């Protein structure tokens, strides 16, 4: 009884903590990077939602922002970057190219990064407005809050 009560609240608290402390890694390959800079800097201020800390190392981040066109030659690199991130981790595909390949329906471009890594939120647009990015971020935060949190050390103990 006691254990159940604590675990339930802990799950909500963990979700709350995780959704407001997203360290993101911008994997910028194309022009959407400009829009990312706009969303991340003071005017639109992604920091209001607790995702202000950009880490330029996948090993220190838990949110991967795939921003821009991913070519076939880049797919192995992207998967390596994703694999290097520590759990729990989330992925946002930012812009039409990352979502579906965009206008580049050709031999060189991956038709959506979900062919390479699992994606949580898809933000379309060429490029998406910063408002859309922030909306996508809020939706991801909702998703994180509602998820049953991965609770490894407890699993190992029991």
């Amino acid at each position, binding site marked *: 009884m006691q254990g159940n009560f604590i675990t339930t609240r802990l799950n909500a608290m963990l979700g709350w903590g995780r959704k407001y402390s997203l360290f993101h890694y911008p994997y910028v390959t194309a022009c959407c990077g400009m829009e990312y800079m706009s969303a991340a800097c003071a005017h639109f201020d992604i920091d209001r939602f607790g995702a202000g800390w950009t880490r330029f190392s996948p090993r220190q981040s838990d949110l991967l922002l795939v921003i821009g066109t991913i070519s076939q030659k880049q797919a192995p690199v992207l998967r390596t970057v994703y694999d290097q991130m520590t759990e729990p981790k989330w992925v946002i595909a930012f812009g039409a190219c990352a979502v579906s390949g965009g206008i580049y329906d*050709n*031999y060189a471009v*991956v038709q959506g990064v979900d*062919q*390479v890594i699992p994606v949580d939120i898809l933000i379309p647009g060429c490029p998406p407005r910063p408002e859309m990015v922030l909306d996508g971020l809020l939706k991801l935060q909702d998703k994180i809050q509602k998820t049953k949190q991965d609770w490894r050390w407890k699993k190992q103990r029991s």
Partner: protein
Amino acid sequence: MEETAILDALKERFPKGVLETSVPLGDATVVIRRDALLEIIPFLKEKPYEFAVLLDLTCVDYPERAERFEMVYHLFSLVTNKRLRIKLAVPESAAVVDSLVRFWKNADWLEREVFDMFGVRFAGHPNLRRLFMNDDFEGHPLRKDYPLRKRQPMIQLRK
């Protein structure tokens, strides 16, 4: 110097090498024989024309033509402030053109790009490898007969 002056000079100097000249939209254009390229380029680089800049080097695929590929060179002269376009046809059966790396260093990567995208080879090129695609890529993607939807992923895709 008028646009046609360089074309007249070329016709006079290389009566066999020059096949056709025209000035579409004001740009001097000369169509030459494939084996005359190495004779004509030094002539253009010397005085008084001094085409010191190779602006672009590319290729076009015309599948309906007997000689399928057409190489296109764009030259620019800083001295006379003139441009010149050189075209030459290349058959698919013997898709080899003389390399221009010894004349312009930037021809190196441009020719590698043409080799990568069209499969035209360049005789005398120091390092003729693919420029954009990965080394185990099959085919040449800008050829018109390359399948439009053909993908060659480097890793196993998830779906």
